[in-house]
């Protein structure tokens, strides 16, 4: 099939405008998007916007240890006298990186398998969907722990382990959408016209999954970050002195309740990031009216 030119573009433009308009009138989405944008910018610009960028490294100042939040140290200091605000902002980097790596692996893999299972059915469907059933039975956190334990306890292994289970959710999602679309008339029409299976999958079905994928991915960002934080809380995070939010909560918890800021404030940072992605996902769901994604 040849493309139908020109006619599309003005409609697309107005679509984009319409979407933007609806988006901007949706407070959930706007707040979520604002949080996400601020978090990402803060992580990227961390060296320039934090008061003590050198505190991500091995800086010890035992005279300034366990200081409560003040104008000088917004989030207080930790057990070796480093600025927790600086370390929290830098800690966002690891969280975002984790989400990027996990979803960067899980989403493409999950999407492709979901498309295949949904479109071809038969043995392909049985094999793929049965594997997802198996993967669903393993808690991602436990899997990550186990893999990290048998390999070596570091963040990369944990990420891979999470990614190895996470794709199943995307597969299930894309599978159910594909199944619905497969029987619709425009697919039948394309098939009748002799379009290749590849064409149908990529040009006809995939675009119909995009909005659901966007919603799911946004929601998942939040949850992957939570799982990652749990892992580093359990001691499978990145090696010190590199700041990592989950690790900060864990090490700060030894000084509870007196130095509450050492664990509570980084913990709030995790919460805010997860909240941002969740609100954004919820907002997008309203916007696209995607019902398939919980």
């Amino acid at each position, binding site marked *: 099939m040849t493309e139908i030119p020109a006619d599309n573009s003005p409609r697309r433009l107005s679509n984009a405008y319409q979407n933007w308009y609806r988006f901007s009138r949706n407070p959930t989405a706007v707040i979520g998007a604002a949080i996400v944008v601020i978090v990402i910018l803060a992580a990227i610009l961390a060296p320039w916007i934090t008061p003590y960028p050198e505190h991500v490294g091995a800086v010890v100042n035992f005279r300034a240890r366990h200081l409560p939040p003040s104008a000088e140290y917004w989030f207080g200091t930790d057990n070796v006298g480093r600025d927790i605000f600086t370390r929290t902002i830098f800690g966002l980097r690891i969280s975002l990186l984790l989400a990027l790596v996990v979803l960067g692996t899980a989403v493409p893999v999950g999407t492709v398998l979901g498309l295949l299972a949904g479109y071809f059915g038969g043995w392909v469907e049985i094999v793929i969907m049965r594997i997802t059933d198996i993967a669903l039975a393993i*808690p991602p956190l436990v899997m990550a722990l*186990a893999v990290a*334990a048998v*390999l070596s306890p570091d963040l990369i292994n944990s990420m891979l382990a999470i990614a190895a289970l996470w794709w199943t959710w995307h597969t299930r999602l894309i599978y159910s959408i594909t199944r619905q679309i497969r029987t619709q008339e425009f697919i039948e029409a394309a098939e009748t016209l002799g379009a290749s299976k590849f064409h149908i999958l990529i040009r006809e079905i995939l675009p119909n999954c995009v909005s659901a994928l966007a919603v799911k991915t946004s929601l998942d960002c939040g949850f992957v970050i939570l799982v990652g934080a749990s892992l580093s809380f359990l001691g499978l995070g990145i090696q010190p002195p590199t700041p990592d939010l989950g690790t900060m909560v864990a090490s700060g918890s030894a000084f509870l309740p007196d130095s509450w800021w050492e664990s*509570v404030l980084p913990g709030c940072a995790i919460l805010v990031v997860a909240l941002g992605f969740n609100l954004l996902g919820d907002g997008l769901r309203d916007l696209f009216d995607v019902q398939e994604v919980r």
Partner: protein
Amino acid sequence: MEFLAFLVRRVLWSLLVLVGLSIVIFAIARIVPGDPARMALGPTATAEQVADLRADLGLDRPIVEQYGRFIAGLARGDLGRSLLNERPVASDIRDTFAATFELVLFTIMLAFAFGVPLGVAAARWKDRWPDNLVRVFAIFCAVTPGFFLALLLQILAGYVLHILPTTGRLPPSMDFAADITGLVTIDGLLRGRLDVVLEGLRYLLLPSIALAAATMGQIARITRSSMIDVASQDYIEASRAFGVPERVRVFKYMLRPSFVPPLTIMGLEFASLIGNAFVVELVFAWPGMAAYGIRTILQKDLNAIMGVVMVSGVFFVLVNLLIDVLVGFVDPRVRIRGRRA
């Protein structure tokens, strides 16, 4: 009868999942770099001792035979011996599983006991302030990391208010062995020890709240949307036209069909609930399987790790089977058609 067929299919299906799970776990266990036998014996062991242990563990056999032994062991409930303390893994897990089971059971009860009414209230006063409150509450529940909530609860209830115990399952000074079912509260009841039951509940409260929050938030959300969905159904309007009071409509005609989605979600989310239990048990020093799992994982106790993951998977599968039965019980469409709507 269709339902029976449905259940039989689900059971067979679950078995297949378990076989797949065992293969995954076995594969993970065999990609370990280094020699499990060497790891178990420590650096001072001689090559001869290592070879002995390898033979003992069957590590020198072909991989398929090793898997066969693993499965045969599983079927007998034998998960091998801990590489570190040589105790049978199965008995260690049995000892600790009861505590986890009690925690999870209580957590699910909490999640439903609060999630469903919250969802009902939100749907009943849709778009009014109770609804908004529930929705904000639910999203915070969903995005608060389990370990963080656990810590916050520990500070608040344990240190600031001094009202609830923050660690363990029972006061150390309390002499009580939960040796009937392994569940402190149930055994307390069976033995007529009301003090034990009350203490058990006090100790359960904080960990289960920390663990329940995320699930409860989900349940409230799903209950709300499914109640709203059901409320717009013709049959609810019909029952209204026939003069059935609102109380009956909400709590009977709407709630029951609305119950299926939260149950289904519970099943799907159960894996992440177990995952969270690992963190929560650690924070509250809850002597459960999850805490045991963390310990063995950090110590690279291979057999124990495999056992813990396997048992988690089996737990997941069993809970989902149970949920299938419950869904069939709640929704005759499933029972009659023999499949989920």
